[in-house]
């Protein structure tokens, strides 16, 4: 395997793995919000 290909593969796959794990851990640290459903209301979105 050539050096440019190996470098690019490690760089890209490494970056994607680190970012994926970072976001996943961030979610796992946040508490679950178990209440169900969406109440229909008229909150103002502006």
């Amino acid at each position: 395997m050539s050096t440019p290909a190996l470098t690019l593969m490690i760089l890209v796959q490494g970056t994607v793995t680190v970012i994926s794990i970072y976001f996943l851990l961030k979610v796992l640290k946040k508490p679950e919000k178990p209440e169900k459903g969406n109440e229909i209301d008229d909150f103002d979105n502006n």
Partner: protein
Amino acid sequence: MAKVKEGWGSRIGLILAMAGNAVGLGNFLRFPVQAVQNGGGTFIIPYFVSFLLMGIPLLWVEWSMGRYGGVRGNHSTPFIFDSIGKKRLWKYVGVFGIFTNLGIISYYTYIESWTLSYTFKSLFQEFAGMTPEQVSATFDTYAGIHGGNIGHHVDPNFPLLAIAAFFVTLALNVYVLSKGLEGGTEKVAKIAMPLLILFGIFLAVKGVFLGDTGIGCDTCNSWAGLDFLWKPDYDSLGNPKIWLAAAGQIFFTLSVGMGTIHCYSAFVKKNDDIALNAMTAGWMNEFVEIVLGASVVIPIAVGYMGIDWVKENAGFMMAFKTMPYLFDQWGPLLATFAGVAWFGLLFIAGITSSLAMGTPFMNFVEDEFNWGRVKSAVVLGIVIMIMALPTILFFEYGVFDEYDYWTGTVSLVIFATAEIILFAWIFGVDKGWKEINRGADIKVPLFYKFVIKWITPLFILTIFISALIKPLNGEVSDWQTAIHQLFTQGSWPWAHDSIIGQIIHVDEKVIWFIDGVPTLMFFKDMSRVLLVLTFVGLSYLVHIASKKRKSLSKKSKA
């Protein structure tokens, strides 16, 4: 509009279901093939640019549109669009969000059923000792592909076992959908997604560390396969075809422009995070595609068949026609495990996506016609069956490809173009930005406000217009020739595969019958008629639902 008592049981369940929606067969089969056909390692540059400037913004836009509609009791794209656009037209644009999924799920469930059958075939070691030709022929027999007779008389494909497997797969989808989001889809995602990643890691490790297989050819080495896949060819970066291919892959892989994300996020509560959730699901999909997907098919196939063979044969069908033979080289036990892991992984990727594709229709009829989950799921199953049978029975007559082109490609781009204009320009980027950031657990970079307003719409419009009027082969020189021809001769050299080229049948003779026998063109056009009728039928249902809403609203005011 109905008070739907559905919901997600947990945040991680929602993220896994969203990731399952995105992770599909394309992660393992389409991405590596696209990469090797479009500059190898260089492909990753336009791919990432498309992900950052189009994929991520669209994820945030779709998640927030879904939540915005859901909070107002709208869980299907026609009425999510209606609540955002406030103009009658938008709900009909939103029909694409149901239509696309009905079209795709009709042929996707069939492919999904192949993976289910092949999981069992691998488990029972049916491919043991077969030559590559025998493995390939086994698939043709399984799918009832007979070739030869096309043009002489109509000889439908009637593969009994494949049809039985299709019905089992369809029934499985209907059953899970009938259990609802928390009790069905979320439960499946929580079990299936970790399993998919484990299977993927096993196969990727095998792919990367296979090395020299000792088959005898010069390039029969998995590292040569990885080199082939990752070696950058920076000269190709200026080719617009590669950019379009990369942007197209982002559409497919993230399942944006379909309406499924809206329909899942319609059950997120108004102050719950969507910014971090969208990132987590999106990057999980990228991990499966770039880290796992890139490390299985190409390196293993090159390891045993060599680069020249892969260059000629790289494609979707390798999954069924080649991989079982390659696994068989690992000895009976490992071959069995690898076969089950590979086809099991594809089945999981398939079912988590098809469940998402069933949701827009389910949400629509539950919201607008107060149908129960079981009734909605059963009717969905019947609709899929009716739409899928032509793709199965006339598989070799191009029906499958027509569905794939119009619903799996064209519809996505139309829907995405409409939604980004709706969100960034009609709803307004300021209100949209507030929606994205409401309850956010991460700080979304302000840069993305500019991207959502300008860059993403321009990006998608460029893709749409390029696909619509693509000249000849779509190379830079072809565009120059076309513009010159437009000004000198007043005509445009439509590419056969441009959208307009497809509509007006460029380079094709429109003959439906020869000696009383339907031609391939007949099947092609009839597939289009069926798809148009589906779209019109769905639009009519939306019209009825809209009238029903108005009448209810008048009654409640009175």
